[in-house]
């Protein structure tokens, strides 16, 4: 069930984010995740950053342990699991906040479309995958502190962009407050939207019901990528 993988490279992306490159590849679709198990520590879901890497922010005890791993150490991976970003239309707006950039960059790379990416972070040091985004999309940067690009939230920049330009669809990943706002803005502009949600997961396969939303959809199995249609009722009219 688990694929035991050796870490063959570790890249410091930002002061709090590392990418772990593995000796094994997975056939994932953009937005899908895997469960990473560290024996005697815990097991957590992470989006694929590429077919053989995970990009992980240090946010708690498990990711602390991850960040202490060295090249040659082994981790156990099960997956890919969950739904994924589908390409709707030819002209797409991608909105990525913080480590939400991980599933978004894989979609931007996988899509065959004209893409504009809004990439946001607290400050310029925390911006992820600038090169990868630039290579496959028109990149608009924003930071909360204005240390690079637009000063403000991704959703502020998003509203600005949507005033000037129209898109066939939107994809987004980031903090839940951001996602709610993205869904709302997309709805107001009548643009189809897909967002990737995050929840504490236990089983990861839609059995325990722990990550179920109020509408009964499981983030692990029906998600993590949901359409605006699936979420609008519980996000906006809640």
């Amino acid at each position: 069930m688990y694929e035991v993988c050796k870490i063959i490279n570790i890249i410091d992306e930002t002061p709090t984010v590392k990418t772990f490159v593995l000796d094994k590849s997975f056939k994932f679709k953009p937005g899908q995740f895997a469960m990473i198990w560290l024996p005697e520590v815990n097991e957590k879901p992470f989006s694929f950053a590429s077919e053989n890497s995970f990009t992980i922010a240090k946010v708690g005890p498990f990711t602390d342990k991850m960040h202490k791993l060295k090249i040659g150490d082994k981790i156990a991976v099960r997956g890919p699991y969950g739904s994924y970003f589908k390409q709707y239309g030819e002209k797409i707006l991608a909105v990525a906040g913080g480590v939400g950039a991980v599933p978004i960059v894989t979609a931007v790379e996988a899509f065959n479309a004209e893409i504009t990416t809004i990439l946001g972070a607290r400050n310029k040091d925390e911006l992820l995958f600038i090169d990868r985004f630039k290579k496959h999309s028109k990149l608009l940067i924003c930071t909360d502190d204005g240390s690079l690009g637009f000063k403000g939230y991704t959703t502020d920049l998003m509203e600005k962009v949507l005033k000037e330009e129209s898109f066939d669809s939107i994809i987004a990943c980031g903090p839940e407050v951001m996602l709610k706002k993205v869904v709302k803005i997309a709805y107001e502009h009548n643009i189809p939207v897909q967002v990737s949600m995050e929840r504490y997961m236990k089983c990861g396969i839609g059995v325990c019901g722990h990550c179920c939303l109020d509408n009964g959809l499981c983030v692990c199995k029906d998600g993590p990528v949901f359409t605006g249609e699936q979420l609008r009722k519980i996000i906006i009219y809640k």
Partner: protein
Amino acid sequence: MEIKLCGIKFKNPIFLASGIMGDNAGALKRIAINGAGAVTTKSIGLKPNMGHKNPVIVELDEGFLNAVGLANPGVDNYIEELKKIRGFLDKIGVRIIASIYGKDEEEFKEVAKKIEPYVDMIELNISCPHAKGYGLEIGQDVDLSYNVCKSVKSAVNIPVFAKISPMVNIREIAEALCNVVDGFTAINTVKGMVIDINMKKPILSNKFGGLSGKYIKPIGVRVVYELYEYKKPIIGVGGIFNGRDALEYFMAGASAVQIGSAVYFRGYDVFNKIYKEIKEFLDKEGLELKDIIGIAHE
């Protein structure tokens, strides 16, 4: 296929088992609209319980090994979940069974009394094989099991079922409990372990877990057959994936069945599917459900 258990009507005898999609209102509702005659909650205790760390579940080819460790938000928070859906479930005729646990008869009783107004039946978890101080550690002690059942039974007015482990002496526990509970649910999962040979470690953070799914069906059918002689209604559970599996349980003596692992293996609409499969068999044989309950004993 409407049935009556202890005077309560169920629109059909195919229920959701405890521990699957029972964590919150949204999950239960989803199962309810997929055709279950009743939904059973996750086992609920007095206080919020984080349960074990991940991994709490191992996917097997035709079942699971799990050690969630009775994770739940506590009875007070869970009641808020039940309030969200009670009205809707009533409207579509889906019953709610509260699975509850506690460390002793007092705790069981307190949870039972709190949750009684929001549910139709209570199922006592004295059989979970992966929680220290709870579940099977109570079920393995016949006197303690008796006290728990008696105490809950005296505190509530809705039917009380005891969920039985296959790892105890069935005759002993059934004799002790049959005069105090309204019925039995059988079986809970079987204590097992899965080791990842590459990591060279047990996968579950708790090391041991409960085996469910196809693996345990013959064990469950056997326990139901053994329990049937105590003349109490039985809810059969353990590895029921399709109509044929359910029919084995009915013939062994179950009046209703619960579905767990199969929700994963056949999808959330497994309840409708199994309903149809049972009905086809009964129609072909020209029988009604009541005709076959316990028929393997004749």
